């Protein structure tokens, strides 16, 4: 009656899970390969740097989104949080002459505050995450509009050190990308190897069982939203550093790209499974597509359509894999 050889089932499922990351890498390599074959400059140092610059912010936000989606949630407010943080940080740097080093903690704090708001509405107000963060998407953007109005922070207003951080690199890797990858790795370790991180998976996998097992759901949910907010806040700082120009529309509509990256990266939209590595690869893939289109002389208008098609393909693939896996397990595990 017990599964005699569950080893095979395990490795098989493992393969499927790893397959996702593998599939993404294959897609990335293929895309880069084809593009480079058509235009060798796509792999030039400058071009790769550009790509890493472009990926840095999406990567960071995808990381936070992963944490939230794992708990069966979603955070649609990331674009607005990014805008708010970018504007607050930018104006603090330009208006108050705050030292550059304080930019990161300030952005994190602004983001974390927004995340706390989201978490509180969701946990204490029992508002579904979709609705709550849709609401804060509006509200926070409105706050940015209030604060910024028609003004714009220009590169010339920002301290040179800050802009250097935005455009500089170590060994060809931009600082911004390095920061994102470090955060990605840290969050990855947190999710994979810490009790609190595993609790998030448990919450998304089976909320009722998590309650029975004594997982502190409220605290963990707050953690997830605060983390997502904080990373979006950090994203705002990176955004300001990279573009040098911040106006009230910074990060507008970004949530779509981030959700797309996460879904394409194999994080199950209904919680419980997925990794930051996958989400990061998803973000990278979308950025590469974005950058390859003009190089391939494909009409830029295709970009959004491709993102949409990728989301659909990714969730359909997930579904297919899980149906197959379930059927295989049932056949194997059945005692009939």
């Amino acid at each position, binding site marked *: 009656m017990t599964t005699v050889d569950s080893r095979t089932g395990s490795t098989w499922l493992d393969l499927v899970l790893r397959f996702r990351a593998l599939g993404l890498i294959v897609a990335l390599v293929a895309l880069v390969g084809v593009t480079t074959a058509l235009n060798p400059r796509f792999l030039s140092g400058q071009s790769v740097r550009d790509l890493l610059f472009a990926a840095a912010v999406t990567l960071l936000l995808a990381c936070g989104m992963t944490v939230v989606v794992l708990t069966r949630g979603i955070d649609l407010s990331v674009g607005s949080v990014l805008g708010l943080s970018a504007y607050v940080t930018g104006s603090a740097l330009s208006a108050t002459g705050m030292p550059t080093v304080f930019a990161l903690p300030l952005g994190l704090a602004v983001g974390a505050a927004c995340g706390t708001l989201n978490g509180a509405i969701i946990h204490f107000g029992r508002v579904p995450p979709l609705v709550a963060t849709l609401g804060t998407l509006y509200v926070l953007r409105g706050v940015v509009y209030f604060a910024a109005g028609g003004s714009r922070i220009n590169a010339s207003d920002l301290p040179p050190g800050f802009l250097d951080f935005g455009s500089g690199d170590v060994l060809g890797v931009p600082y911004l990308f390095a920061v994102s990858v470090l955060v990605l790795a840290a969050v990855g370790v947190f999710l994979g190897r810490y009790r609190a991180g595993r609790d998030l998976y448990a919450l998304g996998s089976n909320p009722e069982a998590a309650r029975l097992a004594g997982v502190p759901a409220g605290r963990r949910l707050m953690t997830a939203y605060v983390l997502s907010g904080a990373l979006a806040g950090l994203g705002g700082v990176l955004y300001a550093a990279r573009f040098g120009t911040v106006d009230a529309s910074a990060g507008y509509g970004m949530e779509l790209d981030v959700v797309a990256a996460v879904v394409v990266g194999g994080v199950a939209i209904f919680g419980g499974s997925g990794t930051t590595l996958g989400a990061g690869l998803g973000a990278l893939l979308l950025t590469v597509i974005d*950058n390859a289109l003009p190089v391939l002389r494909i009409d830029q208008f295709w970009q959004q359509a491709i993102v949409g098609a990728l989301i659909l393909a990714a969730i359909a693939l997930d579904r297919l894999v899980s149906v197959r896996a379930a059927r295989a397990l049932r056949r194997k595990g059945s005692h009939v």
Partner: protein
Amino acid sequence: MKGSKPMNRRRLTLLTTPVLAAAMLAACGGTTQGEDDGGGPAGGASADPNADFETGLTYAMLPKSVNNPYFEASSAGAEAAVNALGGEFEYTGPSDASASSQVSYIDTLSQQATDVLLLSANDPNALCSSLEQARAGGTVVVTFDSDVDPACRDLFVSQVDSAEVGLALLEMAAEQIDATGEIAILSATANATNQNAWIDVMEAELESNTSYADMELVDVVYGDDEDEKSFSETQGLLQAHPDLKAIISPTTVGIAAAARYLSGSEYKGQVALTGLGTPNQMREFVQDGTVTEFALWDPTALGELAAYTGAAAASGIITGAEGEVFTAGDLGEYTVGADGVVTLGPPTRFNADNIDDFDF
């Protein structure tokens, strides 16, 4: 889901047949493109060039969107003019640059019976019916920066003459690359009226002017007046065209983004960049050598002129007919051109020598 067959062919056919039949039937005598019955209202009033500016008029400025420094500057100019004229001024508009949002604002303003509406349009046609209603209610409609169908407004205050801008842009680019090599254009949106007029002028000039014979326009890309998109479009341009010598960006958002990209890349100093930009945004890049020279009109003066034009029309000094003359405060005397267009003047060129003299 088991048990549900979504595509019930029979029902789908049932559903579609009558609709299609109606469509086919209608197609026989249908309305197709080109047989429009259009025709806007035509002005019939006569002007009194000696009349005074009326005081106590209400002015509303409706920009493409309110979160744009360029329009903030225009609004400052307009407000100053309105104060000088003894009127009331309001700056209002949507936060997103869409035509449908502007329609709601125009409706609101026409209800409030605003005397003069200063508008930069997000779409040349979508606003027309609302503008007609506003004009029917006695509002004078003056467009600035971006025009609508001439039939739908009284006057258009153009920043510059299209030909002049196009020629100036091409001239600056040619000077910087010795009139040889590939050039590309980074524009705003593909249906922006002013952008396309300038691009047309440049294309025509490249064809006809022999001094530009060695220059080739290889690409036109659109950054949608979004910073990030313009940034990555610049990036794409340089990758797609390794031999590119110059980029012309006739939009303030585009040129700033392109300059920022160039200044941080290996192309800095290799690829020339010129176009239309504000001195405050470009100062840094002129100083670090990314950009040699660029041009722009003064948006504050544009707003000011728009306000005076509106005041003149509302006071009956002008009607929008070609050849009418009015005085726009300190800006001096202006003449109404064909199609009711008033032109601000030639663009100002900014370079390392004069850039510090401007603050906008």
